[in-house]
């Protein structure tokens, strides 16, 4: 199976210790859900996902060059 290199942008409290975007090598067609399992973050049904600026779902498959954003709800006001 081919590999794919993607960029992951974490947001808000998920950013944690990461000060910049992550570059990951994954399997081509790996899902967002599978990518989250690789990261030190807890999966949560309220996360909003975006791939290349478009709304995505946990089951969306990722491809080489994709930019994934993982956005939890925040409420600082």
């Amino acid at each position, binding site marked *: 199976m081919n590999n794919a290199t993607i960029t992951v942008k974490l947001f*808000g409290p998920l950013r944690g210790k990461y000060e910049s975007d992550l570059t990951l090598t994954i399997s081509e067609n790996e899902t967002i859900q599978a990518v989250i399992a690789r990261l030190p973050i807890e999966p949560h049904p309220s996360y909003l996902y975006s791939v290349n600026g478009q709304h995505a779902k946990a089951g969306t498959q990722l491809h080489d060059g994709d930019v994934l954003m993982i956005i939890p709800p925040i409420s600082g006001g």
Partner: protein
Amino acid sequence: MISQLNNEDLERFKRQLTLNGYTNEHQTKLKNSTALIAGVGGVGGTTALYLAIAGIGRLKIVHSGVLTSSNLNRQILMTEDWIGKTRVDCAKAAIQRIASGVQVDIYNERMTPENSADFVRDADAAVSARPNFSERCTLNNACVQHRIPLIEGAMFDMDAYLFSIKPGLTPCYHCLFKDADSRWQELGFPVLGALSGTLGCMMAVEAIKVITGYGKPLFSKMLLFNLASMDFNTIAVNRDPGCPVCGALHDTEGGKV
């Protein structure tokens, strides 16, 4: 009855009346409009101030609680001598010192399922800036039910996001965030005042656009930014046809804009 712009208005707002595409008609709409401000902290307080000086006719400010010393790094409507006193009173006094013509109605209450309909019903737009998910969800539900446009913005640390909701046309809050995170500690978020102020200003711009029809609001779009890196992104967001809050609404039912 529509209140027309008078000579004082034309002088006071003449610099914004020369904005490209912004007309007396937009300003008249603003003068005759009401914005509900849910939360008068670092974000909502800034939004309220900039709506007031832009010439909105009426603000309804809903916020429960008193001012503490730790609020002062971000709350530009508050003053040191007000610590321990009710925030909404200080907000009203500060706004009316700067823009005495704005009607400011204040409510020292939380947004609840029981009172939210009364707060949103006569608003032309609502601004969501409470520091907890339960009040944000309650406000979203009320705005969808009464077809009131909602400006949603929140921050955490150096990150913030912003989007505008037109019930029946765009995703509502519940379409995007289905399960508010119960692990969130209210009032525990890290915050730099300049960031909450930036977000508050942007929310004021969105509210002005939504109310007057000027510009292009963030409908079905979300702006995300991080001010530590000055990284700005805009993403498209979609309605959830099965959303229990707004799924039954269609854009032909319209909103107030």
